[in-house]
């Protein structure tokens, strides 16, 4: 593929359009989503004001919807950064239009997920006690508590993934700055951090991104392992399981890819990015999703089979209600959503289309939410002493807050797309050039080669030298 001036102009036009032009639909969508978020915040306010009892929690089910949402959203956050880092390190060419919309899912899903441990606190105004600050009481947080590990893991991951998201945005913000006038120019001048596209800047950016890509992978894996240890460390039947760490990580990546496919499909439709987010991307991600679905099946079989075979009284009291008791409808829906439907759709090539992967991803997102719920609630309902067993039913506050998080995710994403080109423009351009000049060794295609050259149109300050290269 050869890129000439027209192509560059079209690329810029296509990908910068959402930043410069805002339709009425945007305002309506933002308004509706914001209203849902406000209602959810009001529901939380009501819970604070009236007492925690307005939620459906009880003894013995002390954790339910809120912690389900926590685990679910932290899981969703694993698509982005992890996928993007792996694809970057593997230098998969098709990744270029996908990385940013994946990375941003991580950041927002983490923010939403991390808010749940606070929402679920009995006294949320004291949440800062998890932070190890020097205080007059001279008490540290309890470093033996998995909740404190959570706190550190999540803050590390949030910092890392935000950096990982922002680094490659800088050249694109510089591009917007150069094309914009008025307040936008001022705003993006600040955001672009003085990016000029000098060789030094490119080389530093490349190094920084490489370091982040390598560093973020162990962080991501550790985060969901630690989330799983919130359960696995407690002596609760069917929580206390060694398989939980890898099981949660696999489930997190699984639900994360599904969320990524859904986000990409919506972006493609709404922003008319059909030329950039192509069926090839959905096909590739669909294959990845298929693999993760099989992994997920493997883990749930490993977990369930060993419990069933072990036949321990306290665990069987939890096991049977999920297989054929009150939780069975949810359990088998989950199996259908996470395995049967995706497996059929994704393993047939003709069905692995945009529409097909979207259907599979939707069922997976639902199925994975149910999975988290089934991990948390049934064991709490039937813990050891039968006299203290209980049942859990969600109450409106919890349902509203849960709905609010989905709206919050959509709203944050919507606003992000308004301020940042959702497809990394400079990476796309660099990619086009890289593919067109085959004989050049990869090492030469590194930073110094991405030097800004006086771009023909004078518009881009990014790596605009491709027309020179390919001629």
């Amino acid at each position, binding site marked *: 593929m050869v890129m000439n001036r027209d192509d560059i102009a079209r690329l810029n036009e296509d990908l910068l359009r959402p930043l410069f032009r805002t339709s009425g639909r945007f305002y309506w969508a933002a308004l509706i989503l914001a209203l849902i978020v406000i209602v959810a915040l009001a529901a939380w306010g009501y819970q604070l004001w009236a007492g*925690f009892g307005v939620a459906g929690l009880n*003894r*013995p089910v002390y954790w339910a919807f809120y912690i389900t949402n926590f685990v679910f959203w932290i899981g969703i956050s694993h698509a982005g950064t992890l996928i993007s880092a792996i694809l970057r390190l593997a230098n998969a060419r098709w990744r270029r239009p996908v990385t940013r919309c994946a990375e941003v899912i991580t950041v927002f899903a983490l923010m939403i997920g991390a808010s749940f441990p606070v929402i679920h606190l009995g006294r*949320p105004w004291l949440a800062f*006690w998890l932070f190890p600050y020097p205080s007059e009481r001279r008490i540290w*947080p309890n470093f033996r*508590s998995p909740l404190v590990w959570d706190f550190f893991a999540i803050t590390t991951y949030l910092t890392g993934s935000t950096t990982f998201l922002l680094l490659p945005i800088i050249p694109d913000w510089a591009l917007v700055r150069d094309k914009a006038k008025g307040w936008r120019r001022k705003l993006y001048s600040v955001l672009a951090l003085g990016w000029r596209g000098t060789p030094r800047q490119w080389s530093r950016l490349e190094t920084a991104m490489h370091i982040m890509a390598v560093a973020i992978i162990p962080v991501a894996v550790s985060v969901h392992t630690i989330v799983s240890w919130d359960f696995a460390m407690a002596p*609760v039947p069917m929580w206390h399981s060694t398989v939980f760490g890898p099981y949660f990580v696999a489930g997190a990546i699984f639900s994360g890819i599904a969320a990524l496919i859904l986000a990409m499909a919506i972006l493609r439709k709404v922003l008319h990015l059909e030329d950039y987010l192509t069926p090839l991307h959905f096909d590739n991600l669909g294959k990845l999703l298929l693999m993760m679905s099989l992994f997920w099946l493997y883990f749930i079989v490993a977990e369930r089979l060993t419990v069933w075979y072990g036949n321990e009284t306290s665990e069987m009291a939890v096991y049977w209600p999920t297989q054929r008791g009150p939780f069975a409808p949810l359990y088998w829906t989950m199996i259908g959503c996470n395995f049967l439907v995706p497996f059929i759709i994704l393993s047939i090539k003709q069905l692995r289309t945009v529409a097909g992967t979207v259907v599979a991803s939707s069922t997976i997102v639902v199925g994975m939410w149910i999975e988290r719920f089934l991990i948390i609630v049934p064991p709490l309902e039937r813990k*050891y002493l039968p006299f203290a067993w209980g049942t859990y039913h969600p109450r409106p506050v919890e349902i509203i807050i849960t709905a609010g998080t989905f709206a919050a995710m959509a709203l944050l994403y919507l606003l992000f797309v308004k301020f940042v080109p959702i497809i990394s423009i400079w990476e796309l351009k660099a990619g086009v050039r890289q593919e067109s000049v085959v004989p050049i060794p990869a090492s030469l295609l590194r930073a110094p080669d991405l030097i800004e050259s006086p771009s023909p149109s004078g518009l881009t300050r990014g790596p605009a030298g491709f027309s020179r290269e390919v001629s």
Partner: protein
Amino acid sequence: MDHKWSMVVDLDRCTGCEACVVACRAENNVPTAGEDEAARGRVIHWIRVERYWEGEFPNPRVRFRPVLCQQCDAAPCEPVCPTYASYHTPEGLNAQIYNRCIGTRYCGNACPYTVRYFNFFNPVWDKPLHLQLNPDVSIRQVGIMEKCTFCVQRIKAAEIQAKAEKRDLIEGEFTTACAQACPPKALVFGDLNDPQSEVSRLNRSNRATKLLEEVGTRPSVTYLERGTWRGEKT
């Protein structure tokens, strides 16, 4: 001499009268929940009398088992608390420090005996119960956990008294509210480090067992299992 506070529950003696539950409520300012909230599982009782039925009508048997915090030596509720609100005292008690509690309820999940209670609302007492609050026990606000303390206020009061009189604690000088109230003396409280004490003697009984011993919590409460009834088939 260090103390090792312990309780023995004789299941052969317990009649299920729930006097212990009422006494505990009065002693420790345990709020009432009301009918609706109780049905939702929000009722708080630091000691509860579990009832298990066996057999079919017309020969049903009911077994009572008073369950309170077992003051575990290896308490699963302690390490999981992020703020040290669930804390092991030097005397081996499991203390709940209300001011430190932020209400994660993790300890409530981790406790195998399900004896930790969350304050879903600010406490209320039906009139005239509000007139009988115990000034020695603090009232717990919404959003924090509470549970049996082995009547730590009584332990402390007795220790302070003994110290003022420059003597050791005397066996039977004080006891917990539940043990004090129990008509058939099914509950016995005392110091396990004193080999002459009643609890030490009962702990040596061949009926002595621990509840959920297999979980490995090393409880300080001992249950004396019920023998079979005369003519009862087992």
